[in-house]
């Protein structure tokens, strides 16, 4: 344990090992304050997290109050009954409870919010355009990540064509 290599006053608590451009190993030993001033760590604000948490709880309580009022007009199931038994009462619940159900579905489905895949023949054509777009969007993300901007531009144009139809 040594002193901070920057200010040489405080104890170094921040240790970083990096490989620089020439492939050399670079070690840094800094105190908290110097690490922050170099932009290596974010300023620690204990209140920030608590505020977020409180908002979530308050939001949830407001949500609970609203959810308590929520009853499906079609099947008569209340949102709270659904939360207790885990099963919905009718297909309309997906729309009637959408405000609360959306986050729940996303949580259960690894962040997904839209169907991709098979659909009944009747709504097929409409769905397949949507699926093509969503596939193109994923390819576009990949192209951007790979910094292949030429391909990205081409994919963006194809998406524009499809959604314009």
């Amino acid at each position, binding site marked *: 344990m040594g002193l901070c290599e920057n200010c040489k006053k405080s104890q170094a608590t921040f240790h970083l090992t990096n490989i620089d451009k020439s492939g050399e190993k670079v070690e840094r030993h800094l105190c908290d304050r110097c690490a922050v001033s170099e932009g290596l760590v974010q300023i620690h604000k204990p209140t920030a997290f608590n505020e977020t948490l409180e908002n979530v709880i308050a939001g949830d309580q407001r949500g609970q109050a609203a959810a308590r009022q929520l009853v499906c007009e*079609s*099947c*008569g*199931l209340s949102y709270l009954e659904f939360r207790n*038994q*885990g*099963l*919905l*009462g*009718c*297909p309309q*619940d*997906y*729309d009637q409870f959408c405000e609360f*159900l959306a986050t*729940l*579905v996303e949580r*259960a*489905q*690894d*962040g*997904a*919010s*839209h*169907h*991709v*895949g*098979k*659909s*009944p*023949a009747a*709504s097929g054509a*409409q*769905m397949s355009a949507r*699926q093509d777009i969503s596939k193109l969007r994923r390819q576009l993300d990949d192209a951007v990540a790979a910094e292949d901007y030429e391909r990205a531009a081409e994919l963006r144009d194809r998406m524009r064509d499809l959604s314009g139809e």
Partner: protein
Amino acid sequence: MSTPFDEVARRSTEWLRGVGPLHEIVISTRIRMARNLAGYFFLSRADSAMRGEISGAIQKAVRDCGPLSTYVDADVEHLSDLDRMVLVERHLISRQHAEGSGARRVVFDPTECVSLMINEEDHLRIQVMRSGLQMDEAWEQINEIDDALEQHVEYAFHSQYGYLTACPTNVGTGIRVSVMLHLPALRLTNELDKVVQAAKDLKLAIRGLYGEGTEALGDFFQVSNQITLGRSELEIIDDFRGSVIPKIVEYEQKARQALLRNRSSALEDKIFRAMGLLQSARLMSSNEAMQYLSHVRMGLHVGRLKSVNLQTVNELFMQTQPAHLQKLQGERLNGKQRSIARAKLIRARLSNN
């Protein structure tokens, strides 16, 4: 107490034949689809009249549907407990369907590769099972059945959420792919963590032989998808076919080779001890039978046992289950009587195959 299911219990099922790609380790491939009819409540809100209407509408669709019209159609509500358990042990219905209440049915083809549960958690659950790793074949068949039925019923479908299901964990494709694996060597070498990790990386779940909430018996495990929304059926299937299952199969093969190389006496002891117990015991619980049959099955595949027929072993896994045993004996048996009957059945089948 003669019912059509006495005959069913005596038969083997197509998917237990021990054929198909990677069948030494992959017992079966199963795809299940959850569907609900538009215009009705889900079952938790449906009264008995509505349950009956739903069941009737699907039954009619099945009858009007060329390829399905010759299937066996059974009224699960009015079957005996024993017949229901036979269907569970054959993976034709779920435990939940057996133990449910109200109007509910099962429709299955004579080879038992296809089954349709009516009024389980959703109005309709279509299931296709295949021996070994046969994803494409299973998908093509279930997709065809789904298309054919859709000509006769209107499914509840949502432009954002896809096929609507009673539980939001099935919404979207409504598809659940499950692969049943036999992993005795990974268990013996304490390497099941690898399987759990491989599955977890792709958000797949690992369960016991009879699905949700069941423990792994006799080294059998089911790997199945959790996510049904935001990925197409083929993308979901590709996770299994392309990476997870081949990887797990390779782990198991390596573990078997390592056992043969480094601990061959210990391995042989497991196999021949199991064989000895199965051939000699006078009382045998079903868990014990599963475990010893599992070791014998591995013995066949690593070439240490040659005197036993694989299909016999595969069939015994099913026939030694409590309901099958009672069907084969033609009478109700308590736990102790079953242990005696089970030991006797196994001795007879293993000395004569």
